[in-house]
C-alpha cells in the first residue's frame, strides 16, 4: 500500500461521500432523482452479478 499519508480531512470527505451517494441512489430508486443527476455527482452504477 502507498505509504503516503492521507489527511484526515480527505478520509472524512471520502467517507461522507459514501453516505451521500447512498442517499442519492435511494432517492433515485424512489423516482425522485434522475440517473443523469447521479452521473453528474460521479455516482457510477455497476453490473457485477
Amino acid at each position, binding site marked *: 500500500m502507498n505509504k503516503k499519508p492521507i489527511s*484526515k480531512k480527505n478520509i472524512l470527505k471520502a*467517507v461522507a461521500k459514501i453516505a451521500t451517494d447512498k442517499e442519492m441512489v435511494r432517492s433515485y430508486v*424512489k423516482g425522485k432523482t434522475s440517473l443523469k443527476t447521479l452521473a453528474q455527482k460521479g455516482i457510477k*452504477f*455497476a453490473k457485477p452479478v
Partner: protein
Amino acid sequence: MQNRYNYFFDNSTSTYTFATKNGFLYRVVFIIDETFSTISGEEIPYVFQIVIDKTTDELEPYDAKVSKTIEAIVERFFCKVENSLIYVCSGDNTKAKQRHQIFDRWYKKSEYQDIVMKIDNIITIATNNKNIQKLYTSFMFHKNNPVYEKLMTIYGRIEEVLSKDI
C-alpha cells in the same frame, strides 16, 4: 416452492429488480466505490457499495423471501472472489442502527457466511453543520480474495484515523 423471488437486471434503471407477492418492487443497486483507492492512494478495483430499497415508502408486511432474494444476489456477487462490498446505514441513528442489525441478521442466517467475511465499523463524523453523525458500516469480502489483507488494513484505517481528535 422456491424460497425467494426471481430477480433480473433492469437495463432501463440499471438495477437488480424483483417484485414481491404484496406488489412491492425492490431495487438492488451496486455502485462503484472509490473510497479504498482514495484512502490508500492506489487503484483498488472491485469494491462496490450496495444499496437496497423499495420503490415506495409504503410499509410492507414482513416477507421472508425478500432477504432470501437479496442473499441470492449477494451470493452471486461473490462468485467473483475479487469483489468486495460496502454497506452503509446512515441518517436517523435509531433507524440506521436497526437497518445495520437487520443486515447483520441476514448475513448470519446466510449460506455464504462461511466463505464471505464481514467486518463492522461504526464511524462517527461531523457533518457540514457540525452535527455528529454515526455511520454504521459493514465491509464484506470473500475469504479467497487475493488482496483481503490490504482491504482489511484500509478499512480499519478509516476508523483509526477518524477516531483521532473527535
